[in-house]
């Protein structure tokens, strides 16, 4: 199969750009157009096999031996079914179809399920649960915004086309482009994103809450004592507050600079409150810069399936939710988990070392197209096709817009998709139940 495929969705970051053009040659991705550097790397992967898991592996004694899917799935289900409290973790870089199957698997097992958002924008969701979320799709910002603020995020590195395709540079219905908009960047680092800003605000690390609190107080007419707040001159904050109040349509995008630093969910909450309060003066919206391409999708799927967006504990057969207790890092570090299934994520690399160590020591099943520290550590390794390149599905953009993922090319021979693999576990488990 050769030729150009138009309007392909990029399965890398939460921007989920769907204007990628892909040239195929002999069934493989040859070139891509419109994609950013991250997108290029993502699609390039479909060409190589050295770093792929190509064969299911099951630990037998000290060795991990190649087996068929059937044996690997049987062994996976055996491990999960014999656990008292297993955790199904990951889910951010796969399709909603796989996620939905994952939630049912957790329910049937009496397991807990969590996605990578608990160590990403989980605190943002907790903030939303206190305040709400005054947001808009990216196109509303493209068409209307005259002020755009990035706070605690570096889109040039994490979401390379966010500024150029969606918010500041593009021509919109009411805005001609860059010169019709003010760009403000708030970041302790003078990042490349901040270098194109009209106003750069440099807070001290871990003082975002104080700054947001001061801005909110200013909006209510309060005078702030002292020359600086969180390292930022009070005069600069006054300037920001005035700019916000005068906006016709303002948008504030925030990243992990808020959700990961001191204050975590409270930082996000303060930003959400600021934007809520601003609507008494001017039109404002706020948006979280969701990282992985379908992390937002997991929260949507999990919410309609269980009522809760992440960190769901099914040990009692019904969903319970209490991040800080039922979230992956806490469950594992508190020793409550005795087996783990990871799907499309690498917690051994990305979670704190103590947690990674505990994962290494427990029975573990890893479903992943690629070799990772987690697949290295797992007792059962189940290779999968790359969702969105080697198989179709649905994903949700950071602003909640659902977009179709394409299957562009065939996976390496015999490989199944994440959804098929998880459904395979479900079927086996249901079979055990009826015996």
């Amino acid at each position, binding site marked *: 199969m050769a030729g150009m495929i138009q309007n392909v969705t990029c399965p890398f970051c939460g921007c989920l750009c769907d204007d990628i053009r892909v040239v195929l040659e002999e069934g493989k991705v040859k070139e891509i157009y419109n994609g950013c550097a991250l997108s290029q790397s993502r699609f390039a992967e479909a060409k190589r096999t050295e770093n792929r898991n190509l064969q299911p592996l099951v630990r037998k004694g000290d060795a991990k031996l190649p087996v068929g899917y059937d044996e690997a799935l049987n062994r996976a289900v055996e491990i999960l079914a014999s656990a008292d409290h297993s955790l199904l973790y990951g889910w951010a870089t796969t399709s909603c179809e796989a996620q939905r199957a994952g939630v049912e698997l957790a329910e049937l097992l009496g397991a807990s399920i969590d996605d990578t958002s608990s160590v990403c924008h989980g605190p943002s969701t907790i903030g939303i649960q206190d305040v709400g979320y005054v947001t808009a*799709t990216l196109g509303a910002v493209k068409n209307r915004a005259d002020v755009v603020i990035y706070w605690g995020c570096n889109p040039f590195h994490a979401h390379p086309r966010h500024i150029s*395709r969606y918010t500041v540079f593009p021509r919109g219905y009411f805005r001609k482009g860059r010169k019709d908009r003010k760009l403000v960047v708030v970041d302790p680092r003078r990042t490349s994103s901040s270098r194109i800003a009209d106003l750069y605000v440099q807070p001290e690390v871990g003082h975002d809450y104080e700054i947001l609190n001061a801005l909110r107080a200013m909006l209510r007419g309060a005078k702030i004592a002292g020359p600086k707040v969180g390292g930022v001159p009070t005069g600069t904050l006054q300037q920001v507050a005035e700019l916000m109040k005068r906006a016709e349509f303002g948008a504030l995008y925030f990243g992990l600079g808020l959700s990961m630093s001191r204050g975590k969910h409270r930082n996000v909450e303060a930003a959400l409150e600021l934007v809520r309060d601003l609507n008494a003066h001017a039109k404002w919206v706020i948006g979280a810069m969701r990282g992985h391409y379908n992390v937002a999708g997991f929260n949507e799927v999990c919410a309609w399936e269980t009522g809760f967006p992440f960190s769901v504990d099914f040990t009692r057969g019904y969903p319970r939710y209490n991040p800080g207790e039922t979230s992956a890092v806490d469950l594992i570090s508190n020793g409550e988990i005795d087996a783990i299934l990871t799907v499309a994520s690498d917690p051994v690399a990305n979670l704190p070392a103590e947690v990674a160590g505990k994962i290494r020591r427990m029975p573990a099943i890893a479903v992943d197209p690629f070799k990772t520290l987690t697949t290295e550590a797992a007792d059962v390794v189940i290779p999968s096709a790359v969702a969105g390149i080697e198989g179709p599905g649905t994903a949700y953009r950071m602003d909640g817009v659902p977009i179709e993922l394409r299957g562009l090319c065939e996976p390496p021979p015999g490989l199944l998709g994440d959804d098929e693999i998880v459904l395979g576990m479900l079927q086996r488990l249901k079979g055990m139940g009826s015996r």
Partner: protein
Amino acid sequence: MKAELVLANGTVYDPANGIAGERMDICIRDGKIVEQVSEKAQRLDLAGKVVMPGGVDIHTHVTGSKVNAGRIMRPEDVRSSVSPRTSLTRSASGYTVPNVYQIGYTYARMGYTTVVEAAVPPLKARHTHEELSAIPILDKASLVLMGNNWLIMKYLSEGRDDLVREYAAWLLEAAKGYGIKIVNPGGTEAWGWGRNVEGVRDKVPHFDITPADTIKGLLKANEELNLPTSVHLHPNRLGKPGNYSTTLETMELVRNATTRMPRGQVLHVVHLQFHSYGGDSWRNFHSEADKLATAVNSSSNLTVDVGAVVFGWSTTMTADGPFEHDLQRLTHLKWTNVDVEAETGAGVVPHFYSMRNAVAVVQWCTGLELLLLIKPDRIFLTTDHPNGGPFSKYPQIIHLLMSRKHRDAMMEKLNPVCKKSMLSSLDKEYTLYDIAKITRAGTAKALGLAQKGHLGPGADADVAVYDLQPDSTEGLEKALSSAHLVLKDGTMVVRDGRILAAPAGRTYWARCQPTDKRGEMINGLREHFRYYTIQLENYPVSEEHLIRSSPVVPEVSS
């Protein structure tokens, strides 16, 4: 279900076929109601039980972006009602923002078998369908938001009714929607700038039209397309003191409009309760239900649903973005808002209807007054779930409608403002026949679902059987909450309030035939898509995305 079945000796209420409490047999074969069945048919003796067609909810918010935003924002609501997985059912959760399983099971237990999701932003229609597909048992349809759509407004301002029609048809197919919905026309667009419109004659900012133009234009398109249901309209100024005059003015716009379709109505006004208020502040806020009732009763081309209020928690959610902002400013509770590029928006705010609060009590009275004053063929039971309260409270409202004594007893517990209401003087009591109209016969007809809402031959064998006495309201609420039997397409899905099976339901949508304007419209649309952030080709929801896709193909007008 291939087997034949006779529901024997039940007391049947089937208003569409004029059957009011007759003891008779209902025959079922292959999931359909039939005249007769063979001797081999299984017989279920339902002597002493009440038999009705499966309920049809014409207006509910159960799926999609804003409903899920409500779930995500309200874990306190979700955890307030949970039940574990069983061998037949998934775990259910949520009270005003139930998960998909709670929705399917609770409706089914109440004897409802068809529901209409009342607001779908086309850009997020795929989300709606993912949830619709996940809701067990029920047949579903959805209404597509068009009243603040930029291209619709542009075509209207250019006088291109032909392209409005063609684009509306395309949007229904793209979103796999069943009908056209208008919410606060022009107001949601104005909210894109933090503003609202104040009436049907206001100009929509930056678009050279008024809400009245949008309503009339989409109504015309709807009728030219011969869509099974009329336009569903959420008028301007929802929830505001004094809004009844806007509602009357809105109804006046369509006074002379007609339809060829069997439904009869050209406009369905949704949750009328929220649009029937007098006064000019919260201090002199009162009901103008009688004026609205007169207007509806004296017209021949309008239907309404009530959007009644029940006391306790609700989660308000609507495409009426500015309303939710105003509500949040009043109550200081959580507020989620989602503006959807170039077409619509939504807001979500939790709300508590307190028996002691004068405004909430006036709203409660207003809903009941409308139901008691408007002919039951023209008004339908809804709470605009979950805006006026959760749909699971319908049995409470039915009880109030059927018993003046119960209403009087209830009013003793409420803020005394209710004593001054018209409700306190209304004697009317609904019969089960009337109840069957406002929950089944009327809604199915207004929706143009000929196979629903009745028990005549050819109807889908969606049947609800309740263990209650026609002449008594003793145990009524429990009986209606927990049906004795529910059949869906002839399959028994509920017995004594317990779920027995959870088959997938259908998704109805309107597949209009393209006309010779399609090419011109698509060219315009392609141009217009510069204002979107996804590609035109990725916008439509493919039919494969639906479970049990059931397209309805409207007749093409000559």
